[in-house]
């Protein structure tokens, strides 16, 4: 039972108050994309042991989506941030590096 802070309404709540939305920062492949890129967009997901970026929705709260940077191994949450971005914000990258000096952003 994770505890997450919704950056939209500022509430820190139980995992049951949120709905998971899978990997964050996927790039949508629309008409014109080749088959391989479209397949990867639909089905290929990262499953890292360590730092991971996820989408969450504050389903039983404000209803808004947000992103979370989390360690899948220790469940440490490095930060939560807006869903209206297509890249990881600098302050989140810094927060991760402070805790995982060897980690590099792979996007």
């Amino acid at each position, binding site marked *: *039972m*994770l*505890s997450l802070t919704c950056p939209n309404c500022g509430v820190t709540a139980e*995992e049951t108050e949120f709905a998971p939305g899978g990997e964050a920062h996927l790039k949508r492949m629309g008409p014109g994309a080749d088959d391989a890129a479209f397949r990867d*967009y639909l089905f290929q997901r990262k499953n890292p042991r360590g730092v991971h970026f996820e989408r969450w929705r504050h389903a039983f709260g404000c209803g808004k989506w947000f992103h979370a940077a989390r360690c899948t191994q220790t469940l*440490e949450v490095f930060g939560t941030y807006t*869903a209206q971005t297509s890249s990881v914000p600098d302050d989140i990258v810094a927060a991760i590096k402070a805790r995982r000096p060897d980690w590099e952003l792979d996007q």
Partner: protein
Amino acid sequence: MSARLPGGGLLIDRAKPLYITFNGRKLRAAEGDTLASALLANGQTLMGRSFKYHRPRGVVASGAEEPNALLTIGSGDTLEPNQRATTTEVFDGLEARSQNHWPSLEYDVGAVNAKLSRFLPAGFYYKTFLYPRAAWKHVFEPVIRKSAGLGPAPDRDARDPDTYEHFYVYTDVLVIGGGMAGLAAAEAAGAAGARVLLIEQAAHWGGRALVDDMTIDGQSGPDWVAGKLSALRAMENVELRNRTMGAGVYDHGYVLANERLTDHAPGADGPRHRLWRIRAGRIITATGAIERPLSFAGNDMPGVMLASAVRDYVALYGVSPGDRTVVVTNNDDAYQTALALVGAGLNVPAILDARAAPAGPLIDAARSAGIRVETGKAVASVNGKTHVQAVEVCDQAGEGTALETIPCDALAMSGGWSPVVHLWSHCGGKLAWDADNAMFAPDPDLPPTGADGQGFALAAGAAAGALMAGDALASGAEQGAAAAMALGHEPRDPGKVAAVEAPAQGPMAPVWLMPQGADIAHRSKAFLDFQNDVKVSDVQLAAREGFESVEHAKRYTTLGMATDQGKLSNINGLAILSDALGQPIPQTGTTTFRPPYTPISLGVIGGEARGPLFKPTRKTPIDGWLDANGAVWEPVADWRRPYALRRAGESTADAVTREILNTRRNVGLLDASTLGKILVKGPDAARFLDLVYTNMMSSLKPGRCRYGLMCTENGFLFDDGVVARLSEDSFLCHTTSGGSDRVHVWMEEWLQTEWWDLAVFTANLTEQYAQIAVVGPKAREVLERLGGMDVSREVLPFMGFAEGTLGGIAARVHRISFSGELSFEIAVPAGQGLAFWLACLEAGADLGIQPYGTEALHVMRAEKGFIMIGDETDGTVTPHDLNLGWAVSKKKADFIGKRAMERADLVRPDRKQLVGLETLEPRTVLPDGAHAVEGARLANGMANMIGHVTSTHFSPTLGRSIAMALIKGGAGRMGEVLEFPVDKGVTIRARVVDPVFLDKDGERQNV
């Protein structure tokens, strides 16, 4: 035999006798007894038969770790099997029965298994009952299930009359365990100003301070505990709960605890159990330690008990486990038991100490008390049938040759102590091997970590490996202060440590097998896991057969897999395994500790979510009227909707037929309020809907409606409905009844996470409006009688809508039809829904107006070949598969699912496509889901299935059966006759036809 002593018994009140029954026999107990102490007080040491071999078993422990004394409590609706006698508090009238025997506890036919034990080794299920395969189901499994097992499940008709609840709590510091360390930790954290919750699984507080020989700050153990409790109760920021077991520790400091409120007082008001769902800043596990049994032949005989349990029964309950008790040990601690027994006036014929030269104050005290101390000695075997009669003594260094027989009626054993590390380990806390005490203890450098990456748990007292009273108390105070400090509180009096005086103890010596060279005859009677009947020889066999991982050996032998989860057996078992594998114990490691620490009831897991509260039913504003007028309810997503409205004397099928014919001939009324209604508004609303729907929605004119389809990115249809353009910038999107929440969330997901540049708001108005469909040739007349707005063909044509009032009620009238008839769907404010419904019924009374249900709706839409999401779609069906290609825009550059529709598989000509079916025999209705087969069987012997029936009905309008099906290459099969084998030798033949069965040109609705 065991008996009640004339004095002593800290927890019982001899002045308050009460009566319980055991296997129907009435026994006297005292208030404060546990079931185990009450049975022992009455000389009842035989308490059950073992799981596999049906060996006689008695109580071995005094707490939650008890593996043997599992009893069935209560009867009928309150029957509960497998309750530990050691943690069951007695009450007047308690009924207890022993388990796993036939015909009686004393004479058990199943005990023959013990004679056959040579043929029932570890893994025998896997080796023995292989062939013939059919025999497994009909012979082996029923026999094994009958002979093995614990208590019976409650009767299938039994219903739990008790209530349960969940309780949500936030606290700074949660202290689990109310012994010395827990009390000290709670006090230290509380004094620093932290909000503290202290829970204890037992009814009483104090742990070993109540029993063991010690003084704390000059007070006796019990006095110190009483003083601490009143000090803690006086602190406003400290909450104490007894009978509350820390069940599991989860992510980010989340804890489940189980409080037993009325188990000891049945009939009392309130819930029976309460599940605490706790979020704690820091968790202190002060869960104590559990004494280990020694592994010698016959260590499971009734009368053989843990040394600490023996002195618990004497000190806490005034019960003697026997007149003559031999003590066998590898450590100093068990000498306290011998001294306590002698102090109570009982006889201790000998202390058998496996160590060669033990020394220290406790050994000296035993000797000066006149107790015979034999060093380097072990128990070779235990004599007796259903109770200890004597022990055979041998050298620990030898192979078990008996040197002497000591008659006795109880045997107290101690193999050292294991910290209770379960809660520390549940969420990833790591353990370290303490070679001096031969135990695993929490590694303070590797605690479970929380959201911030910091450790959120601290172990204290014996649970941290501080086995001596003084160390445990200091550790509790230190960890309590540390937890408070970690949360920003300032500890008070950090230097103040209570002065504890307790006898010093010398080093223990690990003894995993007694005697160390025991032969196979002895090893195969030396039990490790009492509850699952796993012996030393079983674990050694597993190692020989290659089960080298502790997790594999556990599953192969079932060691530690019983309801006690191996609280007594784990360390002994993995020590035996390590020895067999020739590797050190830390290399073998432990199995995974999983919650709950002790079993909790299914009732408390469910909590209040039972019956109507399990999942609340959504009801429309018309629900009450429908219920009073013959509704036959069916669940539709979270709603309930009437399948049909039955009149007196009518069958449900007759009601459906009547409703259909009346709607087609006169006028019908449908409660369509469950339909999803999502308002999409904003400058970019049209652009957004062009992306969400496969159709072009931006070209829809205000005042007009359009049927729209939504696909997933896979190109598969997932919802449909009519979109009404209310104005230039606002649309009302109707969804399926089950899809309203899903579609709203879907729209928000795209708006917030992909197209956040679009200026659009959405609102789910589903429950704000009641929606009523007035359907049939006389529908317009009904509305005209209500009056208030022009609903003529000219002003309100098909697929138009208008806003106004009808019968004085604000209404939005949609000219849309799901039945093929002249049809108006009227949305009114939810609060006016019932009034409008009644007004329609009154206005249409002489026109023959009748309400209809969902089955009539289904049949009428099938007659028209309209698809239903969930019937014709299953997540693998595209709009084109359903002949709905006309609703997929070719002009739009993009929409959700467009890219997928270009994939080779989605344009394949032999995809399954929607067709209509007419059975050759018109009264025969195809079963739903029936498969069409064609040609020769496949190589694997299966029929070549080419598709399946998606909707099937008898159409009263057409007087014949109709069906829709998804058939491979269906579009090219018009006129073909397909075969549907539906049962052995029964094949239904049906002709492929156009799925629109009625009024192909739509003349009935366009009037």
